[in-house]
């Protein structure tokens, strides 16, 4: 099986809210002292791909549209034992819209060759628009399934399990397909072994310009899908009333007296 995983590098979503600042001019978050990391669902997708490869043999390619900084994310993917990586260097808009990204990824995939399975994250941890996967499926004309948490490959048939609002569903598809991956306890990303980290520097990581994949900067700029016109940090004035009392019993009594009326009104 040939599997391609699209990964996005983002500002560490675990940075504490108190350190989070936005630039009202550029309408983007300030990096400050925060790290750039691979979006967690993309890492879940990498793990899913590697597990399929280990069971069936084949090859896993990681692809990202980003900047030179994004090399770190791709290098980490290689250390997780991905076979090869490709980086399309971004031109223009630093927050390209989902359609622009999908166009770039589609052109890159066409350039890289044929794949049996394309994996994406369900959404990114920065803007979280969750549109790129569905748009890419349409660009490539592939069937797709969202919220997939495990995939089995058997003689060209893929069996995917996905999470729904009320439980799970299983789907089968023959031929190339795209899946948007969500996390579960079986696709927790592996920590690269020291040896594999060293090996990763010997693996191919190719960089391409937009021209290399047959696109011009105009093809993907100009926010033709949507444009962020405002980004701000909401202020909340909630004053928490901490329940006080001389004994724990007394505190619990106060707590119960606050909760009980709401319960009575809603049952």
């Amino acid at each position, binding site marked *: 099986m040939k599997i391609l995983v699209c990964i996005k590098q983002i500002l560490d979503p675990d940075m504490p809210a108190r350190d989070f600042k936005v630039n009202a001019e550029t309408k983007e978050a300030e990096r400050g002292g925060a790290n750039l990391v691979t979006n967690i669902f993309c890492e879940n997708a990498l793990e899913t791909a590697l597990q399929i490869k280990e069971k069936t043999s084949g090859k896993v390619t990681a692809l990202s549209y980003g900047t030179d900084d994004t090399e770190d994310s791709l290098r980490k993917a290689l250390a997780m034992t991905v076979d090869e990586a490709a980086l399309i260097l971004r031109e223009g808009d630093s927050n390209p819209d989902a*359609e622009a990204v999908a166009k770039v990824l589609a052109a890159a995939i066409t350039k890289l060759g044929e794949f049996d399975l394309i994996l994406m994250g369900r959404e990114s941890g920065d803007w979280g628009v969750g549109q790129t996967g569905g748009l890419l499926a349409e660009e490539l004309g592939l069937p797709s399934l969202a919220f997939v948490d495990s995939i089995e490959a058997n003689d060209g048939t893929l069996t995917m399990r996905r999470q729904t609002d009320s439980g799970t569903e299983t789907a089968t598809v023959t031929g190339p397909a795209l899946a948007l991956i969500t996390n579960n306890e079986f696709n927790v990303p592996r920590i690269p072994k020291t040896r594999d980290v060293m090996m990763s520097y010997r693996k191919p990581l190719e960089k391409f310009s937009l021209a290399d994949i047959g696109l011009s900067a105009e093809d993907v700029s100009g926010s033709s899908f949507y444009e962020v016109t405002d980004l701000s940090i909401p202020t909340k004035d*909630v004053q928490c009333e901490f329940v006080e009392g001389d004994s724990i019993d007394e505190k619990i009594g106060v*707590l119960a007296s606050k909760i009980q009326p709401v319960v009575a009104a809603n049952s």
Partner: protein
Amino acid sequence: MSNVIVVLFGNNGWDRSAEGAAGTGQRLAQSTGGNLNVVFLGDASKEARDGAAACAASVVVVNQPELAEYQPEAALEAAQKACAEISDTSVVLFGNDTYSQELVPRLAHRLGGCSLADVQGVTADGGQVLATRSAYGGKAMSTYSMKKTPVVLWVRARAMDPATPGAGGSLEEKAYELATPRLTITSRDVLESEGPSLEDASIIVSGGRGLGGPEAFENELKGLATAMHAVQGASRAACDAGWVPPNWQVGQTGKKVAPELYLAIAISGASQHLLGMGDSKMIAAINTDPDAPIFKHCSFGIVEDYKNVVAPLTEKLNSMG
């Protein structure tokens, strides 16, 4: 004039999500001077048909065997065909559920429009559609100016006001020629749950990593939830640990809820969790750490080990009747 379409799944009936989506659709149609149209994918109950016809100028029920149960490709193609038959559409709205989330970008692409997810507010002034939503895992709010028509969105419909009944509209059943699907959903496994869903609950008792394991969910928190007539939820940390099913998760990548009361037990209050429950009417917390971010969003809280609080609180509430 420009029209608005609300796309619903017949199987879901006229639920709170359908009401909220229709309400938002109606208000948008009023501001664009167009009509509200409702499309049901799959057969819809009489209640759903009546609910839609009471507020929409036209109701289309796409009723054919391929749509009896959700299949991604059939639903996508049917939605595409039904939307294409309505002219001059500015906005297509979906509710907040797995299938809507999956269809939105693909439908937008097919209709030549643009799309966005988890929209909390949408306006259409002078033809310009603006959508507001959380960004950066709930740390920021963002506004998007949408650039192509139609604008296809899934919205937090349950939190939106229902439509006001207007002149009854037309109702039509349709069926389309659909391509043979390449991908097929072959089985569905619905997790049993008693009472209302998390999204429809008036009171939620949620637990987090600080509970230390599944036992507290099954014992103490379940008892408290029963005493409070509440539905149980959880943080991602608790779901990821496998202590409770994934569909208990509240937050950015979980359920978006806005109950009358949300009680967070041993949950720190990360922005991604708050993104899913920050609009609750009243938030309360039990946490050992007085500096836990959750307290910045609480009306009231108690700084204590949950082990010392939950069981006696349950008893106290039960005795108060």
